[in-house]
């Protein structure tokens, strides 16, 4: 979900001020502060996928995705590289706690000869960690203005604003200028460095051979960084703080899995119990008890009940009744809850640690631990998660991750409805749902990992320091994302209900119900009205799922509808993103495969459960049988893949 991503025209005489730095160093906070616009701020790589632009005085400020260096190793890097190449002034934001890592990018940009200010951020955190940084010395050694700051509390912002005008190119590496002169012209000074470093795309632009000096230049730069850090950073206190101990507990299976289980339990209590039951009960009964009757009597005063207009506006799928009740009464509180949890998780720095913890498990599914981040984000918004698969190392992993996201990860809106429906039916269906979804993910992942050609790229991820998320930060993020969501969903919901009302008024809905009867009634053993839900579900799945609340069905039938819907692709938006990310042909294949699998699995589970219930099985044995099934399946798969690994 993108917030302030729009393109601003540069006013005459204005400059392009570019913010650049490693992931999670606080660029977005500084961007917000300069431009007054809101941007997502997160403690993990991959948040800023599109650039965000805003105005600051007469200039344009551009925020870039966080990178560790400028080249073309990933999509994010290519975007960032081109923005940096076009910068008039560069504000390089670095985290004072790990200068040794961040200054690599700094020196690369200095070597490109771009006028720069260095924002030495998170000095408060560095002080807590017992680090003393001599900013004045750093300024002299680098040859660019350095500003000590702690952007989240606002300290140093004024000085940064003053020093933006003093930005200048710094001291580039000794001996580099001569080599740059060999390729420049035709390439400009900035591009020349990237050509020397073997950047293929940039070299092609000038018709030059990519240079072969990357390794030597990188090594020299790394040495320069290490020497700088040795000179300017003094560590006054050693020893482990509580957070770094907690961070290590999160990584080890013996403590990490219990911590993860505890986290998930807390999330369930907050979202599944507090938001989904307590808050939604109140908001929903307000909407159906006060809002809808009031609206109906108002509308019916003008259009008597039974007329076409009143059916469309306030009938079973009323544009003004159903849409508003679902969006405000049910979805909004739930989506708020889910985004709250996600925002806190992102800011805390926990996600990369979960990635490390589950790395081993995911390798079986042809992914590395990093894929857990898009997966968890998928529980917020599958569309956003599909975009964030760009952080994954290889095309094969992106393919697997997107397929699994499309199939087995329900987004916040779907989850909202699922929790709302299932929590009314007792714990058994909830547990069953989670188990089946996990099984489908595991088995599909294992199958894809086994049969898709290629290798899994290994995990290589930075573990950012754990932080206590700041309420202001995560509350603003929660609100902004929920608001975006409702804003996007409203026209689609309204359009969908309008579409359905028209189908109903014209009698087409009945025809469609009959046409889909083989799937809904014969295969899934559901009432034929369920066709409405599937039709709506194609537009936006939670919208279809929400309509379950309208139908009177058995608990098992409710369950099957939810399961089947969860397994299909969430919404039009995510479908479009899948097409965009994977191309038309693969996108279509993914979509169809997911749809067929969903119907197939739905029907199979229906038969399995019906058989078990009629044979008098109790709930626990049903769950156990499922566990046995999945274990056997995965075991067979590992057996199958063993000889391949040996060769």
């Amino acid at each position, binding site marked *: 979900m993108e917030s302030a991503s729009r393109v601003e025209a540069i006013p005459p005489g204005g400059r392009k001020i570019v913010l650049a730095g490693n992931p999670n160093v606080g660029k977005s906070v500084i961007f917000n502060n300069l431009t007054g616009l809101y941007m997502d701020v997160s403690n993990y790589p991959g948040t800023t996928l599109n650039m965000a632009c805003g105005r600051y005085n007469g200039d344009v400020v551009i925020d870039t995705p966080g990178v560790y260096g400028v080249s073309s190793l990933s999509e994010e890097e290519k975007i960032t590289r081109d923005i940096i190449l076009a910068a008039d002034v560069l504000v390089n934001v670095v985290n004072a706690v*790990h200068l*040794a890592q961040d200054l690599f*990018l700094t020196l690369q940009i200095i070597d490109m000869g771009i006028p720069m200010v260095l924002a030495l951020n998170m000095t408060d955190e560095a002080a807590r960690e017992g680090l003393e940084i001599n900013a004045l010395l750093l300024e002299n050694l680098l040859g660019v203005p350095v500003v000590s700051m702690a952007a989240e509390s606002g300290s140093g912002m004024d000085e940064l604003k003053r020093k933006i005008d003093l930005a200048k190119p710094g001291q580039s590496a000794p001996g580099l200028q001569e080599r740059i002169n060999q390729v420049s012209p035709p390439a400009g000074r900035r591009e020349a460095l990237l050509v020397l470093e073997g950047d293929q795309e940039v070299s092609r632009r000038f018709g030059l051979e990519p240079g072969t000096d990357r*390794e030597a230049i*990188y090594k020299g730069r*790394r040495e320069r960084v290490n020497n700088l850090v040795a000179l300017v950073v003094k560590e006054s206190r050693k020893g482990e703080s509580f957070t770094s101990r907690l961070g290590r507990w999160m990584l080890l299976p013996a403590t990490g899995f219990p911590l993860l289980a505890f986290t998930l339990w807390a999330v369930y209590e907050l979202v599944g119990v507090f938001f989904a039951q307590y808050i939604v009960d109140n908001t929903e009964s307000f909407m159906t008890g006060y809002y809808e009757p009031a609206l109906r009597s108002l509308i019916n005063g003008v259009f008597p009940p039974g007329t076409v207009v009143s059916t469309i506006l306030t009938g079973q799928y009323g544009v003004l009744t159903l849409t508003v009740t679902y969006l405000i009464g049910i979805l909004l509180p739930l989506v708020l809850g889910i985004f709250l949890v996600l925002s806190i998780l992102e800011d805390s720095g926990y996600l990369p640690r979960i990635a*490390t913890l589950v790395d*081993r498990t995911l390798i079986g599914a042809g992914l590395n631990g990093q894929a857990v981040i898009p997966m968890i984000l998928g529980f917020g918004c599958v569309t956003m998660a599909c975009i964030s698969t760009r952080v994954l190392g290889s095309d094969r992993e992106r393919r697997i991750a997107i397929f699994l996201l499309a199939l087995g990860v329900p987004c916040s809106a779907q989850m909202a409805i699922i929790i709302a429906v299932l929590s009314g039916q007792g714990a058994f269906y909830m547990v069953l749902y989670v188990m089946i979804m996990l099984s489908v993910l595991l088995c599909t992942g294992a199958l894809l990992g086994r049969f898709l050609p290629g290798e899994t790229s290994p*995990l*290589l991820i930075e573990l950012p320091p754990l932080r206590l998320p700041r309420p202001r930060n995560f509350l603003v993020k929660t609100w902004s994302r929920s608001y975006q969501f409702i804003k996007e969903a409203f026209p689609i919901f309204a359009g969908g209900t309008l579409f359905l009302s028209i189908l109903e008024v014209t009698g087409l809905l009945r025809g469609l119900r009959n046409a889909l009867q083989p799937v809904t009634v014969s295969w899934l053993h559901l009432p034929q009205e369920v066709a409405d839900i599937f039709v709506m579900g194609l537009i936006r799945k939670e919208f279809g799922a929400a309509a379950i609340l309208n139908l009177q069905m058995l608990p098992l039938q409710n369950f099957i509808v939810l399961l089947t819907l969860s397994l299909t692709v969430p919404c039009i938006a995510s479908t479009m993103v899948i097409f965009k990310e994977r191309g038309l042909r693969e996108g279509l294949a993914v979509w169809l495969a997911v749809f067929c699998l969903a119907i197939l699995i739905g029907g199979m589970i229906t038969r399995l459960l019906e058989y078990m219930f009629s044979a008098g099985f109790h709930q626990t044995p049903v769950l156990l049988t499922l566990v046995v099934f999945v274990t056997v399946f995965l075991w067979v798969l590992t057996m199958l893949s063993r000889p391949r690994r040996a060769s």
Partner: protein
Amino acid sequence: MNLDEAKKGQLIKVTRIKDDLTRMQAIRLGIAEGSVVTCREIVPAGPVVVARNKQEIAIGRSLARTISVEPY
């Protein structure tokens, strides 16, 4: 020896990183051939976490196997 054989808490010197792309990424993150790092944590059968100063990096087991190190 390779990184996956390092012991928890051991101080090690990275002598060789085989894969080109990984070598570049590692240099950016702060670990070059010749760097001295601490083996901070070993997730059983999983990634190895190495640390330099305050910074921690998790390295997948299969990758750790291709990184040569020596005790420092």
